[in-house]
């Protein structure tokens, strides 16, 4: 028994980038050098203890998947050493290691034998996997006839239910319906609790922060930071603020996909704090305002205008909607240009990245709508006035609430 599950020492992976459009001989005759080389990974050091869940974050092309491939021995590193203590199960993208011509059951068996699992164990595990994936009726059907959802479920079921000591998972949790995702997350925490190790590549920062112990942050193939998952996720998100299009707190709507009758155009969204000062990001519990600028076609006659502002969390899951009709505000006699201002007293959002959509309606008809109006960050703040916020993983919304202790049960309370 070793004191590590995975040890990565100064690992680098160099790839060759070459065009293969026409026959190589023609490129050769034209005197083109067919290849250029680049490092997809360089100088990576990672230690993972048994039973740890390590999150791997970074932008697209940062080398996350390459790292998993090297760690799972699918491809060799160009330099450095990887040491693995235990069997490695890999789940790279959808339908890993799955052969479209093979039936569901044959695929399970192939995956199991590749992991070196004894035949008797395979038989017992197969039923478990089939039940987990919920594909009982299709188990004798070749995989190519599966729906993509079924393929994902089977892939997850295999990865999560076969006994291996190290599990490498690449973003697959992003797919599948909510209940299945939940089932998988439960299973992953069971797996880590039983002493197995999980490496998890993901883009869902809330999930990384809530489920992983440690995290590493890759940037352009280099290790930018490593440490406790929540710390790394926060650093990563703060760095990402710079990438958000909010220049000095103004999100221009020009050039964004839009729709509507065009009698009025929404032109920008300004982020304001409670005193009306322009800001680039918000804090939980802060008094905030969204100022939506507009220009009206002077020839048009608009009346009974209402506004809608929708806030989205990760993966564009809607968090909530501010509709002016719900709060009695319907606007008439618009000036040729101006701003609609939406105020929120105590911003009920957990820290994270949010995006929004805005629309302007006349009765039920959309005058102008911009579904992707840009994004902003919410940082930690004192929503409850207690200096604490709920732990991540429980959704994006902050709910104003109270807890109290009662000696009896509810029936007693009713009697009083």
């Amino acid at each position, binding site marked *: 028994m070793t004191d590590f599950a995975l040890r990565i020492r100064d690992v680098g992976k160099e790839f060759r980038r070459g065009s293969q459009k026409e026959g190589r001989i023609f490129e050769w005759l034209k005197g083109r050098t067919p290849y250029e080389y680049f490092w997809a990974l360089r100088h990576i050091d990672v230690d993972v203890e048994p039973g740890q869940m390590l999150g791997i974050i970074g932008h697209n092309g940062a080398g996350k998947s390459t790292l998993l491939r090297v760690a799972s021995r699918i491809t060799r590193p160009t330099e450095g*050493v990887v*040491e693995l203590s235990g069997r*490695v199960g890999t789940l790279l993208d959808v339908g890993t290691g799955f052969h479209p011509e093979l039936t569901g059951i044959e695929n399970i068996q192939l995956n199991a034998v*590749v992991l*070196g699992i004894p035949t008797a164990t395979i038989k017992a595990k197969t039923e478990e996997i089939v039940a987990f994936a919920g594909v009982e009726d299709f188990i004798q059907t070749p995989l190519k006839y599966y729906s993509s959802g079924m393929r994902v479920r089977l892939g997850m079921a295999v990865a999560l239910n076969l006994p291996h000591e190290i599990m490498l998972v690449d973003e697959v949790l992003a797919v599948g319906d909510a209940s299945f995702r939940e089932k998988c997350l439960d299973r992953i925490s069971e797996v880590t609790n039983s002493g197995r190790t999980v490496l998890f590549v993901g883009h869902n920062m809330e999930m990384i922060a809530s489920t992983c112990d440690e995290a590493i942050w890759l940037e352009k193939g280099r290790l930018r930071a490593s440490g406790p998952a929540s710390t790394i996720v926060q650093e990563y998100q703060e760095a990402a603020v710079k990438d958000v299009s909010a220049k000095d707190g103004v999100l221009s709507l020009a050039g964004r996909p839009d729709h509507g009758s065009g009698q009025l155009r929404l032109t920008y969204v300004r982020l304001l704090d409670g005193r009306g000062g322009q800001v680039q990001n918000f804090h939980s519990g802060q008094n905030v305002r969204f100022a939506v600028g507009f220009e009206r076609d002077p020839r048009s006659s608009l009346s009974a205008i209402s506004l809608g502002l929708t806030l989205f969390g990760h993966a564009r899951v809607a968090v909530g909607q501010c509709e002016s009709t719900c709060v009695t505000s319907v606007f008439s006699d618009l000036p040729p240009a101006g701003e609609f201002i939406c105020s929120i007293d105590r911003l009920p959002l957990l820290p994270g990245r949010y995006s929004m959509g805005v629309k302007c309606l006349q009765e039920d008809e959309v005058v102008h709508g911009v579904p992707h109006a840009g994004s902003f960050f919410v940082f930690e703040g004192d929503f409850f006035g207690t200096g604490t916020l709920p732990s991540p993983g429980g959704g994006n919304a902050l709910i104003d609430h109270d807890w109290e202790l009662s000696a009896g049960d509810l029936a007693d309370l009713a009697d009083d």
Partner: protein
Amino acid sequence: MTMSHLGARSVVVVRPPARFPVPDFGELWDNRAVLWVLIWRNVTQRYRQTFLGPIWFVINPLMRMAVFSVLLGNLAGLPSEGVPYPLFTYAALLPWELFATGVDRGMGCLVSYHHIISKVYFPRLVLPTAEVLTALVDFALSFGILLLMMLAYGFDFSPRIFLLPIFLLLSMILALGVGLLLGPLHAHFRDTSNAVRYLIQFWFYGTPVAYSASLLTDRVPGWAVWLYQFNPMNAVVEGSRWALLGTGRTPDVMMFWSALFALLVLAVGTLVFLRAEQSVVDLA
């Protein structure tokens, strides 16, 4: 780099590709279950969406035998060393097909299994080995037909038939060696399969499958005969005929040398394959 079974953990060390890799036989042995699953898959899958199913195993060599018998045996009247011509060709065609299918499948496996090898690890040598052994399964079925034909023609079986496995083994060694040698090339340049198709054709006519070796050896100078007989497939085909029908060439020292050459091909092929397998996944 052996992986243990449940419980005990052993440490696997992954290093950059070696310049002269050697096969890890322990790891291969640990993965024998993968081999069986792949062979089973190959056998059951090949004819899954067909009408005649596994009957094709038998039809393919029978059709070729029929073509040769009519064209070469009847029309051209080629001599067949006192054996009925269909039997004469079929006995040689089977070990030849074992070789040719083995090369074809073994060579293509890095490409045809790309979606698996790019996602899970197991020693890649298992793949071409499974392909060649699959060709042996094909052979076994057609061999049943051959035995029936021999009975029908009233042929006596001699105990020499027990030496047949030696020649089949030689055929598979060569098939695996050539497949390993060409597989990586095929992964880099898909036109390899086009070129190899012609290579196999030439090889076929350079081997006494459809005609009697004496047709050539009687007419060409000694060095050409030497070259002709150095071809390990010559040893396979002539040896198989000898073991089954009593004609052909009695095993001699030349067969030994060509067998040694086949082993050399296998060794070089293994080295080439192991070097290539470390990077072939990156080709995509």
